[in-house]
């Protein structure tokens, strides 16, 4: 990103400006880190360190007992495994379907403005508008509380992200490579997978990471469409509602477990962040 000042001015302003800038940045960093720190530290505090005034910022005897409790007594492990499976499969499916559609839109302008508009607008559909009928439909189709059901729902939910991020990447590819492949004797299907997709791979990878994070962190669909078998990690937090005090550690342990992959993946796609957040409208 370019480095430039948005407010020009003589040098004494610069110094004051610098102070203000770093103050703002510093405050925000604190704002971001402190709650996170609190969650992580609570996950390793022994229980009697919870209810203290002043609060304990670093426990004298850190423990991992909450992690084991969260994973096994509160079925956190099952939630974790379900989330992993569901997120992974949804990501793959979303990537495949999204790639196919993005390629078609990018190369052939299929369906013109209308199709593009329709797919894009799905991103903004409030889940509450379709959750009730989907709930009923899933029940009648036998998909309620199944991993497959959630996978289908999440693939649908993340299509706009996949399609729109990859669309931008496909548009940038020079046509002559694909033309060479066609003349060489490849079918369009082969051309897409053997020439276009490998070249768009960075974009596809970035889009996939965004999809994974979206599914990993999703709550509403999982809440409504699962029960005792296919529940995901975010839904396990329901068990900690009400905060009777005894479960702070477990709740935070689970939170930390969910946080770590999220954040690591997020760091990986930093460069594509603006593109992912705005569905490709901005390059960043």
């Amino acid at each position, binding site marked *: 990103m370019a480095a430039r000042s948005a407010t020009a001015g003589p040098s004494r302003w610069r110094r004051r400006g610098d102070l203000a800038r770093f103050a703002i940045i510093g405050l925000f960093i604190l704002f971001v880190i402190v709650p996170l720190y609190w969650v992580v530290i609570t996950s390793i505090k022994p229980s009697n360190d919870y209810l203290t005034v002043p609060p304990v910022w670093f426990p004298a005897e850190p423990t991992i007992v909450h992690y084991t409790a969260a994973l096994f007594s509160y079925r956190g492990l099952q939630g974790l495994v379900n989330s992993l499976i569901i997120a992974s499969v949804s990501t793959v499916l979303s990537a495949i379907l999204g790639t196919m559609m993005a390629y078609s839109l990018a190369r052939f302008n299929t369906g013109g403005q209308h199709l593009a508009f329709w797919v894009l607008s799905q991103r903004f559909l409030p889940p509450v508008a379709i959750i009730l009928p989907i709930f009923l439909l899933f029940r009648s189709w036998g998909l309620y509380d199944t991993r497959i059901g959630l996978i289908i729902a999440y693939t649908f939910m993340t299509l706009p992200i996949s399609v729109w991020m990859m669309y931008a990447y496909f548009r940038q590819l*020079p046509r*002559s*490579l694909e*033309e*060479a*492949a*066609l*003349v*060489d*004797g*490849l*079918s369009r299907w*082969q051309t897409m997978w*053997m*020439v276009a997709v*490998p*070249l768009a791979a960075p974009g596809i990878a970035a889009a996939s990471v965004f999809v994974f994070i979206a599914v990993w962190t999703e709550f509403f669909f999982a809440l409504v469409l699962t029960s005792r078998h296919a529940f995901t990690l975010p839904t396990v937090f329901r068990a900690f509602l009400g905060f009777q005090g005894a479960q702070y550690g477990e709740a935070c342990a689970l939170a930390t477990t969910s946080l770590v992959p999220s954040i690591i993946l997020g760091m990986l796609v930093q460069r594509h962040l603006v593109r992912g957040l705005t569905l490709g409208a901005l390059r960043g």
Partner: protein
Amino acid sequence: MANVKISGLHKSFGGVQAVRGVDLDIPDREFTVLVGPSGCGKSTLLRSIAGLEDVEQGTIEIGGQVVNGMRPRDRDVAMVFQDYALYPHMTVFGNISLSLRARGTPKPEIEARVNRAAEMLGIRALLARYPRQLSGGQRQRVAIGRAIVRNPRVFLFDEPLSNLDAQLRDEMRGEIKRLHQEIATTMIYVTHDQIEAMTLADRIVLLREGKIEQQGAPLDLFERPASLFVAGFLGSPKMNFLQGKLVRSGGAYAIDLGEEVPKLALPPGRAFNGATDGAKVILGLRPEHVGRAAGAQPAPGSQRLETTIELVQPTGSRSYASFRLAGQPVLSELQAHDVSGPGERITIDLNLPRATVFDPETGRAL
């Protein structure tokens, strides 16, 4: 190997007509060059033959088979692109072998073919490298290798040498010509460079604004251009064009350029399409046919006159001297040391039997 036949081809993009009614017959094994200024439709024509563009009207036949609507892969043609279009994520071996891999050719056969093609082009040592590690000339060879490994019926070249520097271009030109002698397949080559056209072609097809202006052997087009456009396009430096009137006395024709200059007598026996006496015409004479007077008498049909040189442009092997004839500029080709400089009086022989007379309205040769 196959011949290519195009009948009544029309193709437009949006509202713009790129190809308007082209008929072309290319016999098997011939090297045909489609040449013309940019926008003349040559690339469109080539891409239509490849199947990369759909045609609205007309038919394309390869080897007697109508290929309209057939996918490129089914037409069994190979194409070499201007920007080489090498797959950056594959090695040279991968690039060349892709077409074979895609159709399920067994591995030993793939190896044999790729090695054979690489050997022919002298790139065997590069098979494990990636396109980004290659120079322009090497990439071009890989692109050609990709084409020859399939041994297609027709080779198509879309301005393959435009991205190379001049020295490399000369060298690759020779290679392509030798390739044609070597594998004797129909080749259709598109370029805007008339030197490439002249040196490579068995037959030149000169296109202008979507139509064929003239086609034939290079020397035919060069010595007997059918129009002003053809005459001006081929040959460097350009042909001299002089405006005058065609006059007739007795059975002989002559060009009248005005009072200051004697009439230029044209050789007898030429009909000039029954042009009327006094009609406005353009006389075309190439600089190499305007030279220093040699011998006591001019050669039969040539005309001798005296003039003053205005400008001299030496190119090393030749020098080009400009002078004026009835106020119109004329370029003549002289030996390198044969001229001293501007202001020199010189005697010139005009080799009129080699001249072409054009109708200024239609641009056609008479």
